[in-house]
């Protein structure tokens, strides 16, 4: 997958339609909430759309759609 060529690619950097696999989190508090919602290390994430004003974003993860703000997405580091 083309994401591999970036180091420390973050979820917030993906464009609509791109996918990535969760590697780790930069924020413990946020990670607890994200993991409960199914964003776990090893899980594939696809950015399905970005809100009309550029933030928040909607992602497809573990079989459903989740929305989160860009700042929150930037705590997710992809493989």
């Amino acid at each position, binding site marked *: 997958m083309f994401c591999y060529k970036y180091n420390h690619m973050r979820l917030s950097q993906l464009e609509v339609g791109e996918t990535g696999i969760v590697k780790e989190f930069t924020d*413990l508090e946020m990670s607890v*909430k*994200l993991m409960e919602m*199914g964003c776990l290390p090893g899980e594939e994430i696809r950015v*399905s759309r970005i809100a009309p*004003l550029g933030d928040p974003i909607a992602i497809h993860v573990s079989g*459903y*759609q989740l929305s989160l703000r860009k700042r929150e997405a930037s705590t997710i580091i992809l493989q």
Partner: protein
Amino acid sequence: MNADIKVALVGNPNTGKSTLFNVLTGLNQKIGNFPGVTVDKKTGFCDLPDGRHAQIVDLPGTYSLYPKSRDESIVFSVLADKSNPLRPDLVVVILDASNLKRNLLLYTQVADLKIPVVIALNMMDLAKKGGITIDVDGMAQRLGIPVVPISARRQEGIDKLKEAIAFASKIALQEDTIDVEALAPQLIGQISKEIRVDHNPYYALQLAHQHETINFITPAESARIEELEHEFGFHSQKAQASETIARYNFINDLLYDTVHQKVTAQEETLSNRIDKVLTHKIFGFIIFFGILLFMFQSIFAWSVYPMKLIADFFVWAQSSLHHILPSGPLTSLVVDGVMGGLSGVMVFIPQIAILFGFISILEDTGYMSRVTFMMDRIMRKVGLNGKSVVPLIGGFACAVPSIMSTRNIENWKDRMITIMVTPLVTCSARLPVYTLLIALVVPDRNVWWIFNLQGLALTGMYLFSLVSAVTVAFVMKYILKSRERGYFIMELPVYRMPRWKNVGHSMYDRVKAFVLQAGKVIIAVSVILWVLASYGPGDRFQRIDQKYHQPQYAQHLKSDDLHRAIASEKLENSYAGALGHVIEPVIRPLGFDWKIGIALITSFAAREVFVGTMATIYSVQGDAEKMESVQQKMHTAKNPDGSPVFTVAVAFSLMMFYAFAMQCASTVAVVYRETKNWRWPAAQFAYMTVLAYLASFITYHLLK
């Protein structure tokens, strides 16, 4: 009805939990509060195939037993607190079959509390459509409990579920999901030993996590847990993270063996295609404002006839009662005071029902969460949150349920600002005040062919209320201090057709709550007002009667006019009149006289009381409660110098006052209940009253 078995429904939001609850209990349900907190508690009864009755309680939807909001914290309290009267004998965990992975997290947590549990696998049809095949028996075997596939919406599998409930084991048979003790071995051991001896390690672990917020352990126990945590170096978030990872490992194993998903080429789902239009950069907003416009048009257009019907009914009932009952103070109290007040409440039922119908359709279809998604950026700029959109829109109906609905805003500051500004939004109680005053001073003609001037004035008041709410929010953003971080992690559920039964239930619930809550206040106010307006200090009333019995009055005035003269002089000399005169100097700069002063005072209980008060004050003839006649009387009302009372300046000044003032006892009460601190409603009351006075003053002097 006595319950033979207590059953709790637990599940993620958007899994069809409420639908299942409605299917199981029918109309046999009751809404109340969970003890100590103001979270709606829905309970109902259901007949089981073995002849026993089950009491079903619908617990708030949650993704996990670790609560993110007050509503969610109820779930753990009810399941874990042994002294809680609602503590279930059996838990039915409802899972969305099309989204099993995330749904199963909550199941594994509940299962580890070792309460007997049954799984209801909802939305099997959707899963099948998505190419998911589930080995239901395999799953039941692996978990050690009954798994019942159902479709709550189509009412399929419900009998099987009832059987499973009836014949469920009395002891927990489920297999362990994860090795809970490994997460904090010493701490769990020590808590189990010292605090509760129930041999449940997960219960002990949850106590370690939640001891500060739950109310069913003693402060001493909580302090001891805190000590133990320090002793063993327990880090709540780290422990929670490893627990979640362990649970998902268990779930992945389970799903690997029992669920098979056909790998389909990334086929675009219907929901996705709808989203492309509804959250489109341009169309998204156009559609949203179109929906709002349609909603308000319908609220006004559709409610005209039912409202007229209700109003006519009360006029008829009042006049018939006047005929039947002997005339006297008691009859007057019942018919003019209580019935008059009642009709004031009942008339709003159609509007409230329609508005809540719309709101529940928007929520049920999944559209509301898209609105939240689209608006978050803008709302954040003014100190609010995407989730504030729902209460603000709901504020057009009534601030009371809207303020209650702010509970799902996790961030404290966002939630407080939303609560503080929601009462500024033009609620349905302001509507009769506005329509009455607009009809009085704005000519009923069209400009630019299609725009009716009166309609424009009303729309203006609605838009103005939104602008003022946003402005106040923006200011408060800089006043309120908060260290807490806001976050916005929210599921966007798949679009669905609204479940009409749920919509109907929600309309019914809201109307009932409105009639009961607002009704009490309004009846009380009308009775008090009636007493204040019907009696005066000392022998003033007798003297008025004597004065008008003198021949010069009786001969020169027609009987109608005589009655009116007596009554208006009595009103001026009544307790209410005295009260109005007391505040007159304060409200004179706003253009108001003592009669409007009485209406302002009574309106602090509830805004809609204004029309009734005006009716009582200006009307003295039988058909007091008819709007048309109130309007006519206000139209012809004259100041002592002969000039009309209700000029454009006075009417708009009055509308500005109603736009800003916190004239609603129910809202004050609900803000207190939600914030648990009198400072919030007090601050809200103060800032709104100041704004009301200023806006009124400026308006009056600009238009005078």
